[in-house]
């Protein structure tokens, strides 16, 4: 395991220090407990958005803190949900009096820690709502599992809800919008290689030269099944098919197509996947109104991709297009 680190237990703190040094104009980094807020937090009268999760998914979430997106992010240890004290401190730091929305990826650890933090924040008089993102269609029988995981849809929810909060929507409306995004987005991913958590020092699984993990999450865990490697076009089909089958859409719907890199896959390959995914979407009568291509929700250096498809309405479209000024996503200002 060769990594540009100094020590496994310093990875998160030192990366946060680097973020502070690089993006002091946009964000403020707090230590002990660790959280990142936008530089001008709290914004009076604005609903605040807080998210978080394990580190190692960068730019998610810390890179999405800033005007038009998150007010705060809570980074846990690598691939480990943050603790309630981080979330509580972040929640209090960004509450501008209009309440705080917790955007939580559906993993047991994230859900439990955010739940505890929300209870504590409410005890301290902060209005908190939580929305769980669970867009991963790789998880099939959600009755017999912890439910679908939150993956690529999280990025889209954070952006769109950030736009709505910035526009002055109230807590109930932003939370409702977040649920709407979540129920209109579906995602699925695959890994060509494993990744290595610094603490573990070795890859989380091994794959032969002709094997891939299909239906992976973002924590270096094995996927739903191990299959033989296929062409990019075939793999794009295999990801798009269950997504489209699951997403209640009709012909002529406008969609946002998001081809995400898991970390180790170069952009040139992501564009090859995008090309085919767009073709498939069009063949289903969908109009690709917006697109996003790149490593936005990653699994350290894992090679692989995930595809997310979001059915847009005018409200989502408007807030997707709204200005955003964060280290990881920026336009319109």
């Amino acid at each position, binding site marked *: 395991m060769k990594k540009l680190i100094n020590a496994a237990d310093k990875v998160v703190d030192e990366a946060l220090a680097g973020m502070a040094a690089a993006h002091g104009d946009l964000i403020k980094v707090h230590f002990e407990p660790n959280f990142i807020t936008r530089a001008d937090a709290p914004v009076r009268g604005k609903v605040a958005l807080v998210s978080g999760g394990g580190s190692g998914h960068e730019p998610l979430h810390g890179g999405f803190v800033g005007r038009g997106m998150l007010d705060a992010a809570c980074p846990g240890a690598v691939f480990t949900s943050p603790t309630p004290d981080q979330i509580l401190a972040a929640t209090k730091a960004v509450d501008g009096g209009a309440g705080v929305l917790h955007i939580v990826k559906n993993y047991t*650890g994230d859900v*439990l820690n955010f739940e*505890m933090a929300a209870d504590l924040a409410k005890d301290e008089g902060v209005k908190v709502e939580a929305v769980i993102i669970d867009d991963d269609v790789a998880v099939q029988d959600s009755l017999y*599992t912890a439910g679908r995981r939150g993956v690529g849809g999280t990025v889209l929810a954070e952006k769109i809800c950030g736009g709505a909060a910035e526009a002055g929507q109230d807590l109930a409306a932003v939370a409702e919008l977040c649920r709407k995004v979540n129920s209109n987005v579906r995602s699925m991913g695959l890994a060509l290689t494993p990744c290595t*958590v610094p603490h573990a020092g070795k890859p989380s699984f091994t794959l032969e030269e002709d094997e891939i993990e299909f239906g992976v999450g973002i924590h270096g865990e094995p996927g739903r099944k191990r299959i033989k490697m296929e062409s990019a076009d075939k793999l794009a089909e295999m990801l798009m098919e269950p997504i489209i089958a699951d997403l209640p859409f009709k012909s002529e719907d406008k969609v946002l197509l998001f081809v995400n890199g898991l970390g180790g896959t170069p952009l040139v390959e992501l564009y090859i996947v995008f090309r085919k995914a767009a073709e498939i979407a069009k063949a289903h009568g969908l109009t690709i109104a917006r697109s996003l291509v790149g490593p936005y929700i990653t699994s350290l250096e894992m090679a692989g991709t995930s595809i997310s498809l979001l059915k847009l309405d005018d409200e989502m479209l408007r807030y997707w297009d709204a200005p955003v000024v964060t280290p990881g996503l920026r336009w319109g200002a």
Partner: protein
Amino acid sequence: MSELLDVPVLTAWLKRADEMVAARQTYLSDLDAAIGDGDHGANLARGFHAVTAKLGTPADPAALFKTVGMTLIGTVGGASGPLYGSMFVEMGKAAAGKSALDAAAWADVLEAGVKGVAARGKAVPGEKTMLDALTPAVAAAKGAAGLSAALSAAAEAALQGAEATVSMIARKGRASYLGERSAGHADPGATSAALLLSALAEAAR
């Protein structure tokens, strides 16, 4: 051995737990890598290290359990942080007012803790979680006569419970995403739960 669990014995327990978790950190993380995300050992090592650092000299078992619970909640993260944290917090509530616990009191306290885990995790036994080690441990503690027997029986039952998770298909936590692929591997949380209860049996010996 003493017939009561008092603050010195409980303190010894947590020190022993810290040592044992540190020694098996890689093993626990490897179990987690197979069906989860490979951090369980690191999570608990971080947590119990913080526990022994923070423990100080609590007034009674209730205060001790509360400190342990809050420290785990504040340092572990992941699923196991709130779960083990809730367990100790609930044990603290159940131990309120007692300066030491006899066998029966310990069984009640442990039961309250395990109920806390089940409530927090919305889980039942058979779903391949720490509950599969903890639930039989409560039953064993209740059925034993005397503290020494109760602690040994609980540790042994937890170990068997953890071993029984190998054949289970996970229904809770991130191992559940693997569906049938989760079978054939011991659950890391059940394994660490058994470890904690053997640490107690050892520390009280």
